[in-house]
């Protein structure tokens, strides 16, 4: 594989996962918000904040219109091609990266990606009501899963395959922390007590993890909750622990595997040394921040393998 392709195949994995997870985030929070009391601290712009945008600022720049805040936020998250965090922007970036590494992608996966793109172009043009939105987001997730399924069944087990999977799981870890953050931030202002009762059900629903959460609870002898589950339960495929395991497994064959592994161990240590049940919401938010910083650093290590081309050629491989 070309060195240049590393970035693109890695980002291909990230954007595909981002598309899936953004759709899940939208559904998780929509449900939560619809259930929320009117005096809740939780507000739609928070969704933009956890994705690294300044929600208040973005929305204040908009001309007064008939659109509700909910619709405006959904515009940024779904239809707006210029928004960095929208589904359509993720899809455009996905397509661009796929085109660049087209020769690494099996035909069946390419067709599945194409169909995903055509679907989004057709259905994510205009904002829709909540009910329609819910179905649409489900469909986006489903189609992302189709791409992954086809890839899994057809792609050569190669560096490209490994990098794609690293990208997916890095993004998933990142998005899981962001989705968690929505829940935590919701609680920040009203309370500083330990272990507040988060309303995790809609989150776990969107992550497809309600049943396995109950299984998890039934098999632990200490008192745990969704925080432990999402951060440390390595059997759940959307937990941080699982994502890190998968990156380790995929990184072993890469030329800079050692550097990647080292960075992952640091992240794993971060999770181990914390006594999660002792954390206040404020501390939990801080921990999530630290994990996100670790993920950013990990990204950099993955994308910058230290290879020197112009020095001693005899040291380099020649096939």
């Amino acid at each position: 594989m070309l060195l240049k392709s590393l970035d693109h195949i890695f980002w291909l994995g990230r954007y595909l996962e981002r598309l899936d997870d953004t759709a899940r985030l939208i559904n998780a929070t929509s449900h939560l918000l619809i259930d929320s009391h009117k005096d809740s601290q939780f507000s739609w712009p928070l969704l933009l904040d956890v994705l690294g945008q300044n929600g208040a600022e973005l929305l204040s720049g908009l001309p007064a219109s008939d659109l509700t805040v909910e619709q405006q936020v959904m515009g940024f998250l779904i239809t707006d091609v210029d928004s960095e965090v929208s589904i359509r922007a993720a899809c455009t970036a996905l397509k661009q990266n796929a085109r660049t590494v087209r020769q690494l992608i099996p035909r069946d996966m390419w067709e599945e990606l194409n169909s995903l793109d055509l679907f989004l172009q057709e259905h994510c043009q205009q904002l829709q009501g909540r009910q329609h939105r819910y179905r649409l987001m489900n469909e986006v997730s489903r189609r992302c899963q189709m791409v992954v399924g086809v890839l899994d069944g057809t792609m050569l087990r190669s560096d490209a395959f490994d990098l794609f999977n690293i990208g997916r799981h890095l993004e998933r870890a990142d998005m899981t922390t962001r989705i968690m953050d929505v829940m935590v931030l919701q609680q920040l202002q009203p309370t500083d007590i330990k272990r507040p009762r988060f309303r995790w059900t809609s989150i776990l629903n969107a992550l497809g993890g309600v049943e396995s959460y109950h299984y998890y609870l039934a098999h632990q002898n200490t008192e745990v909750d969704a925080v432990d589950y999402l951060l440390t339960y390595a059997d759940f495929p959307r937990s941080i622990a699982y994502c890190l395991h998968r990156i380790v497994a995929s990184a072993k064959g890469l030329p800079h595997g050692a550097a990647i592994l080292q960075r992952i161990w640091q992240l794993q240590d971060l999770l181990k040394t914390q006594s999660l049940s002792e954390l206040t919401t404020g501390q939990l938010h801080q921990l999530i921040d630290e994990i996100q910083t670790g993920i950013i650093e990990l990204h950099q290590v993955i994308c910058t393998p230290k290879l020197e081309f112009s020095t001693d050629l005899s040291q380099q491989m020649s096939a």
Partner: protein
Amino acid sequence: MGAKSFGHYQQIDQCFDELVQADGQIRTPAAAIARFIDRHGSAELIQRQEQLNQTISAMGVCFTLYSDGNNIDRCWPLDVMPRTIPSSEWQKTSAGLKQRLAALNLFIDDLYHDQRILKDGIVPADLVLDSRNYLAPCKGISPRYGVWANICGTDLVRDGSGKFLVLEDNLRVPSGVSYMLENRTVMKRVFPELFADSFIYPVDDYPHQLWRMLASLSPRPGDVPCIVLLTPGVYNSAYFEHSFLARQMGIELAENTDLLVQDDIVYLKTLHGLQRVDVIYRRVDDVFIDPQAFRPDSVLGIPGLINAWAKGNVSIANAPGSGVADDKVIYAYVPEIINYYLGEQPLIDNVPTYLCLDKKQRDYVLANLDKLVVKPANESGGYGILIGPRSTKEEQQQMAEAIKANPRNFIAQPTLALSTAPTLCDGVLEPRHLDLRPFILQGRDLYCTTGGLSRVALKKGSLVVNSSQGGGSKDTWIINDEV
């Protein structure tokens, strides 16, 4: 079988139709298609065209148009009606195409060595030596097997009698073969029953043949050759094809920045370090290959590549300098070239051609601009062409000035009654003009595709088949008629 299958299909006078005889009978190779339409009706045909368009869109078969400084991806246009050719005719045609490429390669090799053909006065020396396609730095270099143009896309047309003629030899970076292959994939999905119903020769061994040919050029025979396809990049109009072929052959798709040359060896920058490159299938023009050798302002080249090639450490297909034989003026001499090197008569004729550099022929051209097709010697993609009968007086006047200013740069040919084939236009089958681009490979062996890419002018009466100018395509079926 009558032509009722094709509705009220009206052939064009004086034009050979690929599917229908002059008396209105369906040609034998097209019998299965006619049966299909008889059985299912033309409504079904329209529905299949719709299905076909969706398939193309789902498969992402596209080409890139430059427009207002933007690149726009367009779905590849494919007509639902195939073009049929009997296999007995194709055998003779492909023999002629191989003969032609073999002779052209002997010609190019001669030009960069002894120049016997110039000394013997068969081709005027200044015509070659003053051509911008003659690259002096290539003199004395000997590519493997003495073959320079390894991949050739020859444009064939039929005259009014149905005889195939060579219109152009594309020896630089001919494109289109991926569409030939994708057209077949699409047609098989849309017309599975037709493929069961007739003996249509497959086309899908081309990528393997191309790989074999490229591998035969490796300077390190015996090793697993490292072959790369060199592309100008993702914004190039033929990028779809570049990535398609790289994938089909299982080779890397590289840009100039992915390659480097050290000590006259070419290396590929891979994830695991440098890997020595044996063969470069380049899809960039000659002058963009190596800025050190040809063009210092090029950002597309790889410094030092030509030296590595000249030393025999890497093969480049097509070899730099092979474009010297891809010149519409040289084209006029190809029949003599075949005769000179092979001692044979050409199996496929040229289209009659007037050379504007010859005073007598130029005068004829200038006096008949309204009847002739005038072409610049060194353009491709259908640009800069004057089609006399469809041009205005003003355009003819401009062309006359251009010819007088630079006669070497123009040739003229009679306006051909290009063959037609039934094409679905607004739900009705109408005749549209078409050509055929087969692809011929030469390395250790000679190979010719089974059929080729049929390009069709979708506008009524138009003779311009280029996809950049509103052309479409057809799947080309070579049908066994020898059982």
